């Protein structure tokens, strides 16, 4: 079982969600986040004052998937979220020890 954390451009969320559904990923959690990588922030000007805004709005998408689906899921995210320009985001993968579905008390791969 693996957890995928993808930081993507907000306007790419719909495409990424559809791409994940196509490869059979049925659940995910999405959060509006702010951050920066190589893209850095932008400048805002209010009359004579100039402010640098470091943190840009991004979407963090989290999904836990069975090991067998990992490669397809990551490929789907990368393909759908890519614009080729700086600021497209990143995908992180980590191990998950176990999972439980609260309603049915199923565990492991059955629960995701």
């Amino acid at each position, binding site marked *: 079982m693996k957890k995928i954390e993808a930081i993507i451009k907000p306007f790419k969320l719909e495409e990424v969600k559809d791409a994940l559904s196509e490869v059979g990923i049925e659940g995910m959690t999405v959060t509006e986040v702010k951050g920066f990588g190589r893209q850095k922030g932008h400048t805002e000007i*209010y009359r004579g004052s100039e*402010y640098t*805004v470091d943190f840009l709005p991004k979407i963090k998408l989290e999904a836990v998937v069975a090991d067998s689906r990992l490669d397809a899921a990551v490929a789907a995210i990368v393909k759908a979220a890519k614009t080729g320009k700086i600021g497209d985001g990143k995908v992180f993968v980590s191990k998950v020890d176990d999972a439980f579905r609260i309603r049915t008390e199923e565990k492991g791969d059955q629960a995701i």
Partner: protein
Amino acid sequence: MKKLFSFLFLVAVMSCGICPVFASNTPAPAPTPTLEQRVSSLEAYINNGDPSSGLKDTNGNIPTGLTTPTVGVPGPGHNAWMMASAALVLFMTLPGLFLFYGGLVRRKNILSVVAQCFALAGLVTILWVVFGYSTVFAGSGGDNIGKEDIIKGVVGSYSANAMLKDVTSAPNTNYAYWVSQNVFSMYQLMFAIITPALILGAIAERLKFSAMLLFMTLWMVIVYFPLAHMVWGVNGMMNGVWNAKASIHAIDFAGGTVVHMSSGWSALILCLILGKRQGFPREPMPPHSMVLCAIGTGMLWVGWYGFNAGSAVAADAVAANAFMTTTIATAVASFVWPMAEWRFRGKPSVLGFCSGAVAGLVVITPACGFVTAGGALVIGVFAGLIPWFFCWKVKGWFGYDDALDTFGVHAVGGTVGALLTGFLARTSANSNLKLNLADYVKDSLMQPLVWEQLKAIGVTLALAIVGTIIIAFIVKAVVGLRPSEEAESIGLDLAEHGEEGYHSEGTI
């Protein structure tokens, strides 16, 4: 309807029956006006003139007791416009100004701006009723004083209309033939409310509430009331239009010197004495809501029609001209400012549109009743460029923390407006300029009025700057000016008012 008519008929018959009884008791019956005299009184209503002028005999005196039914009463049309105008000017402060300023502060200080504006509405009304109106507008039109008695040219009477004594629905013909004096006094009150509120922009986010109340009380008494009297009082020393014996023959239609220069320059001085906000200019302090700021700007623009066109104190030709010039100058300035940004900074900003609109309104204020459409166009261009340059460059050069640019917009704009009024005032826009200013308004660019305007600018600057320095140090000694560092950093909303403007969603 029939019942109403028969009732009115009955009342008419009864009063006719009663009248002769009283009349027979009076020793000498009052002279009856002729039909011509009654018509001339009525015509005066249409022309916003003196309804009693047709009653004068060959020596210019009105025979004892001679009057018409339209003498000493308000005219419905003029009165209606002035009540609407008064409400519009209040709307500029509540909520126009507090949204315009409130949007520009950080979210932790929005309510402090709202509280300060509301507090001023109450505080200034009390001062106005007790003696403020009297010190600004009391004084007889018959004994214009000017140079002979400088004191009366500077302040009116502290007692004549104190507690609004004798301020009734009858017009005060020193100021308007057809507008109730109580309406006039409330209209002028709205100006007295918004003027100190403008100062709040420079000192936003860091002035203690108690210090604000004490400062504004003293400022109204020492700076605003005398200045308003000098410019608008019937025997004011700078009332060039109506006071033939004025020491300075300056003109200021709706408050370029009284409202915008006085508040703007005082704001600069107070913000220098007060010091910079914690973290300025290191920490970013962007507006927390440009949407609120833009809404407030729209309200200011709408309300300003009451401010400018209403300053004719009648629904007459002068008001109509002011309505037009206000629109032209504001629209042009609100366009020029962001275009200048676009050219020199890369993008036309919403704050640029908003600032341009307010700057246009400020600069046209002293001129609106005196200039033509062409003059308004010129004023709009200057209004879009000069305050913009001050906010963009000059503020950075000197490094003062005029938080919301009260100085850049109101002091600079008011001063530019007062000066441009001198260049651009034309008798074709306002024939009243021929009354006492024939030697000053020559319908040319370099007319002598320019010099008079410069003198008025000088007096206003001196009063605002010296007055504010003295008041600020008094307040500093008595209650102190700044909140504690902790209060400033958690925000004045929570620290001074125990409330928050916004509660974030989803807090557990």
